[in-house]
């Protein structure tokens, strides 16, 4: 395919340019992209392939309705309800469905549990598969060549970059989402949270802990 913009971006680290950030796109490049996108959009609308109201609707859903707050509620429920946790580990799609979440890119969910012996981390090396119903759309770093390439071969260095130290005697399991199975990490419940309510626990659970690159910090 042709590439109608300049690839010679400024970059400030050792590898190839990392353009997965607004900062690495100049105003000119963004303008060119707006125009290229505008052309294809008018074409699809004119040909009756898509409707503007439906385009607006799907962008709105993923910008405003779905996100890691859903996954956080799943995790908090698993921390306070042992029977739910067991169902979650046995049939994650059904258990997550009990909380009202599911659908596109979460049809076949698997939840993997962090323990004192095992630390799980999720990637998609071939594209950027991600459990949309419980985490929303992935952050740019999850889609970057740096993460996708290295986390399988050197997960501990990746975890270190995220500030996550893993003891030598803990096994790191990397889950590469190569099919339509979508993975969510069930982080360890931090100590000192015994008195918190389920809602308060959910507020502690951040996206990166459910991808597995961080732990949930005690409040």
């Amino acid at each position, binding site marked *: *395919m042709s*590439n109608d913009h300049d*690839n010679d971006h400024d970059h400030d680290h050792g*590898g*190839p*340019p*990392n*353009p997965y*950030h*607004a900062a690495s*796109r100049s105003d000119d490049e963004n303008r060119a*992209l707006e125009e290229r*996108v*505008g*052309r*294809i*959009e008018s074409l*699809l609308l*004119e*040909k009756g*392939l*898509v*409707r503007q*109201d*439906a*385009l607006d*609707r*799907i*962008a709105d*859903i993923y*910008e405003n309705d779905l*996100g890691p707050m859903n996954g956080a509620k799943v995790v908090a429920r698993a921390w306070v309800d042992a029977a739910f946790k067991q169902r979650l580990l046995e049939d994650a799609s059904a258990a997550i469905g009990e909380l009202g979440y599911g*659908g*596109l890119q979460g*049809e*076949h969910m*698997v939840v993997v549990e962090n323990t004192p012996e095992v630390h799980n981390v999720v990637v998609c*090396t*071939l594209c950027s598969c991600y459990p949309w119903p419980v985490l*929303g759309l992935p*952050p*740019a770093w999850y889609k*970057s*060549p*740096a993460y*996708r*390439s290295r986390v*399988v*071969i050197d*997960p501990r260095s990746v975890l270190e*970059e995220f500030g996550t130290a893993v003891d030598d005697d803990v096994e*790191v*399991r*990397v*889950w*590469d989402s*190569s*099919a*339509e*199975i979508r993975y969510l990490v069930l982080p360890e419940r931090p100590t000192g949270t015994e008195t918190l309510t389920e809602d308060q626990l959910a507020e502690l659970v951040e996206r990166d802990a459910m991808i597995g690159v961080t732990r949930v910090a005690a409040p």
Partner: protein
Amino acid sequence: MNGIHDLGGMTCFGPIVREDDEPVFHSDWERRVFAMNMLSMGQFGSLDQARHAIERMDPAAYLSTSYYEHWLAGIEILGRDSGLLMDAEIASGRSEHTSTPSRPPLDPEFVDAMVRSGSPSTRPVSRRPTFDVGDSVRARNLDVRGHTRLPRYVRGKRGVVSAVHGTHVFPDTSAHGLGENPQPLYNVRFEADELWGDNLARRDCVHIDLWEDYLEASPVEGRSHEQ
């Protein structure tokens, strides 16, 4: 295909760059590309075809453009492949021939239903799984010139089946209009030293989902790790 998208195991891309308070979309064109891709996919082809379109991007462009630029390239490539869009139209943004969509455009109510119900890749077809949990398998060393979800880094490597996921659409045929060819899908655990070499001390592993046609039985002798 042995494309640039198959990144697993490379160590040359530098540190992972994170953004504080990252927005869902960095600019309006990203939002519009996301929406167009989601709604045009059914007209242009399947999810597997959409992935394969991106894999066919120029490799230098793939590495130097952002995720939503990949999706934009994918829309253009699939639009051309499907015959619904012509090069001249993509360049001008004006329709110059009448194309017949396979279905009417989706309305917002359908979008809501699509997001809610999803599109499962499981099929009721019963092809009995050859392998069971605990079986030693080898990822076949296959030279697939079209779409495949068998990454280079596992080809020829030995692992152990850790889950049987049921019968799923096979992307290698689905991406090329050759049928869904549903077949058993497995999760396979590969030890790090089997995948990456034993010159460095490693005790970690990779779990990856692989279809039955990617796998063959493997004798267990010579393994250095107990399971």
